C-alpha cells in the first residue's frame, strides 16, 4: 500500500515538473505575491491629493496649510481659485479632499469670541481615503483649537494635556500596518493555493481520460485519495513556510506564540481545505468548472474570515455562519499565535471548531469522493 501511494505522489509531482509555470506558481507564487502586495499596501495612507482654496491669504491660513502638509497624509495640488476648479477636480476623482479657507479667517482667530470658519469637502466617491482625510483634518483642527483657546484664555497649556486619555495598543505597539495585513493575506493565499491545487487533482484526469486507467489499477479509493492528497499537503506546507518567512523577515511580523503549534494547526487547516478542494474536483466535469467553483467558494470564505470587515458587526445569523467557515478560525489562529502569542488554551475554541469542521468536511468529502470513484 505504501509503495503504491508513493507512486501516485511521485506522479503528481511529475505533473508539476512538466510545466514550469504551474510549480512556480504553486510553490513561489504565494510568497512573491505576498511580498509584492504586502510591500504595496502595508503602509499608512499618504499622499492623498488635496486642494486648498485660500481666500484669506494670511500668515494664519498659510500656517494651517503647513500643518495639514505636516501630517504627511496629504499632497497639495495646485491651489484652487474658484469653486468650479474644485468641483471639476473632484468630479474627475483627481483630489480626495479640498479645504476652503474663507476671507477673514485670521481675523476671526485673533478676535476673542470670534468664529473662524473652515470648509472641508471630501470626495465621497472614495470613502476609504475620505475617512482618512477627515481624521487628519480633524486632528489638525483640534490642536489649532487648543492653541487658540489657550491663547485667548491665557491659561496654562498643561490644563488640557491632562484631559487626553492614555492609549495603549497591544500586540502592535508601533501600529505597524504590516502586522495586521500580512498575516491575514497569508491566510487567504494559503487557502486559495490549496483549493486550486486540490481542485485540479481529479478534474484534470477526468478531462484527459486518464481517470479510467487509474481506477483499474490496483489502487483502493483511499489510496488514490491519500496519494493525491500528499502532494497538495506538502506544497501547502511548503508555501506556508515560505510565506511565513516573508511575513517574518520581510515585514518583521513577530511570531510570539509557539511555532510548532502554528505549523501543527497549519497542517490541520490544510487538510480541511484539501477536503473541500477535492470534493469540488470530483464534482466538476472540467478544469474550467472546477476553477470557477473554487473561485466562488473562496470568495464566500473570504466574506466570513473577518479580514475585510469585523464579523462582530455583521448580522447575528451571519456571525453564526462564520463559525462554520474554516478560514475564519484559521485567521484568528494565525493572528493569535503570531501577534498575540496565544497559547493552545487561548485559541482552544478556534482549534476545536477547526477540528470539528475538519472531521465533518473530511467525512463527507471522503464519502463523496469514494462514491464517485467506485
Amino acid at each position, binding site marked *: 500500500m505504501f509503495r503504491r501511494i508513493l*507512486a501516485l505522489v511521485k*506522479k503528481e509531482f*511529475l505533473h508539476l515538473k512538466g510545466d514550469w509555470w504551474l510549480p512556480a506558481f504553486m510553490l513561489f507564487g504565494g510568497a512573491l505575491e505576498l511580498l509584492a502586495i504586502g510591500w504595496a499596501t502595508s503602509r499608512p495612507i499618504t499622499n492623498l491629493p488635496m486642494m486648498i482654496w485660500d481666500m484669506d491669504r494670511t500668515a494664519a491660513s498659510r500656517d494651517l496649510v503647513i500643518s495639514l502638509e505636516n501630517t504627511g497624509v496629504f499632497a497639495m495640488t495646485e491651489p484652487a481659485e474658484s469653486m468650479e476648479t474644485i468641483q471639476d477636480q473632484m468630479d474627475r476623482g483627481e483630489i480626495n479632499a479640498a479645504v476652503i479657507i474663507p476671507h477673514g479667517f485670521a481675523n476671526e482667530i485673533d478676535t476673542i469670541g470670534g468664529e473662524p470658519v473652515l470648509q472641508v469637502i471630501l470626495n465621497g466617491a472614495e470613502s476609504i481615503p475620505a475617512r482618512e482625510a477627515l481624521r487628519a483634518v480633524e486632528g489638525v483642527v483640534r490642536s489649532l483649537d487648543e492653541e487658540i483657546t489657550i491663547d485667548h484664555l491665557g491659561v496654562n497649556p498643561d490644563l488640557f494635556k491632562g484631559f487626553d486619555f492614555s492609549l495603549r495598543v497591544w500586540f502592535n505597539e508601533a501600529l505597524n500596518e504590516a502586522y495586521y495585513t500580512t498575516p491575514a493575506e497569508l491566510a487567504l493565499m494559503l487557502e486559495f493555493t490549496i483549493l486550486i491545487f486540490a481542485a485540479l487533482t481529479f478534474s484534470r484526469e477526468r478531462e484527459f*481520460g486518464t481517470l*479510467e*486507467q487509474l481506477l*483499474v489499477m*490496483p489502487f*483502493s479509493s483511499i489510496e488514490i485519495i491519500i496519494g493525491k492528497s500528499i502532494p497538495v499537503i506538502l506544497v501547502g506546507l511548503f508555501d506556508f513556510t515560505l510565506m511565513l518567512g516573508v511575513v517574518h523577515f520581510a515585514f518583521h511580523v513577530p511570531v510570539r506564540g509557539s511555532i510548532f503549534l502554528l505549523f501543527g494547526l497549519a497542517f490541520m487547516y490544510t487538510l480541511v481545505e484539501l477536503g473541500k478542494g477535492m470534493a469540488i474536483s470530483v464534482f466538476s466535469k472540467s478544469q474550467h468548472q472546477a476553477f470557477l467553483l473554487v473561485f466562488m467558494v473562496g470568495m464566500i470564505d473570504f466574506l466570513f474570515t473577518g479580514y475585510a470587515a469585523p464579523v462582530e458587526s455583521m448580522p447575528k445569523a451571519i456571525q453564526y455562519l462564520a463559525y462554520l467557515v474554516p478560514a475564519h478560525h484559521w485567521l484568528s489562529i494565525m493572528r493569535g499565535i503570531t501577534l498575540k502569542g496565544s497559547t493552545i488554551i487561548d485559541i482552544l475554541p478556534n482549534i476545536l471548531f477547526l477540528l470539528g469542521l475538519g472531521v465533518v468536511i473530511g467525512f463527507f468529502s471522503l464519502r463523496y469522493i469514494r462514491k464517485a470513484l467506485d
Partner: protein
Amino acid sequence: MMENGITIQTSGLVKKFGDFTAVNQVSFTVNKGEIFGFLGPNGSGKTTTIRMMLGLLPPTQGAIEVLGIQVPDLITSILPRIGYMSQQFSLYSDLTVIQNLEFYGQAYGLPQEKMDPVIREAIGLSGLNGFENTPTKDLSGGWRQRLALSAAILHRPEVLFLDEPTAGVDPISRRAFWDLLYTLVAEGITVFITTHYMDEAEHCHRLAFIQHGEIIAQGTPTQIKQDAMIGFVLEIDTDQPEDLIRAIYDARENGSSISLDAELYGSHIHVITTQPRQHTRTLYSLAEESDIQINSITEIDPSLEDVFITCMRETSIGGNHEE
C-alpha cells in the same frame, strides 16, 4: 478458484443508460490461455462491456466473473492481476516515457530490483530506445499506442483487456505486438481484445461479433467464415479501373439487372458476389460496351473483413451512443 480453466464468464449481461440499451443479454466465456476477439462497429457496446468487466460500470442485469471473482463487488481483490489498456489515451501526456512506465510499475507494486529490467524491456518492446525522456505528448500516435501497451503488460497480468490496442500502429509494430501476445498466451495469460483490424482478428482463437449491444456470431475465425457464406470476391485487373467502376455504378443506377457491390483497390476492382461465373460474364460484356480492356478476373478468398462487413450490413448500421 479457476477449476475448469475459465477466466472470464458473463451471463445475461445488460447495461442500460436511461432508455438506451447499450448492452443486451451478452453471454460468453473466455478460457484460460485464449485470445478472445470482441469485434463490432464503433458504438456497438464493446467498450461498455469491457468497462463492466473491469468494475468501472455496474451492470444493469446479469453476472460477470473474472478469475473466479464476482465483478464488480470484489473487483479490487483481482485488480493487481489484470492489465487494461483503454481506448482513450491512457498515459499521462505531460510525463515522459520512463516516468509513465515507472508509475505503472510502482502502481502495480513491482519490486524495486525488478523495475529496471522490466522497464528496459518495455522500452525495447515499444521501440522507444532513445526517447526515454520525451514527454508522451510529443510522440506520434502509433508510438504512444505502443507505449500504452507495454505499460499495460508491465506487471505480467493474468488477464489482459485491450481496447483497440493497435489503432494507428504501423504494420511492423503490429506484427511485433502479436508475436508478443502469442508469447504471453503461451505462458498462460488470457487476452480479451477488441480491434478494427480484421487481419488481426484472424489471429484470435475465438471471436464474437457484437452489433447493437447483442452478440450476433461467435466461434473460431474459420467457423465464422464458413457460417457467414458470403460468396466470393472477384478481383478485376484492368488498365482503366476508374472508368470501369464508373461504368459499373452507371449500370447500377440505370436499374440494370446487374447490381454489383464493387470497390476500387488501386488499379484493381473488387466485386463481392454469390454468382461468380455469371457475374464474370456480365463484367466482361459491360467492359466491352464501355470499350474498356479487362486483363483478368480472378476469384480470391473473402477476407474476415468481408465477412464482418456483410454480417454487420445485414443487421443494418446504427448504434452510436458511445462517448
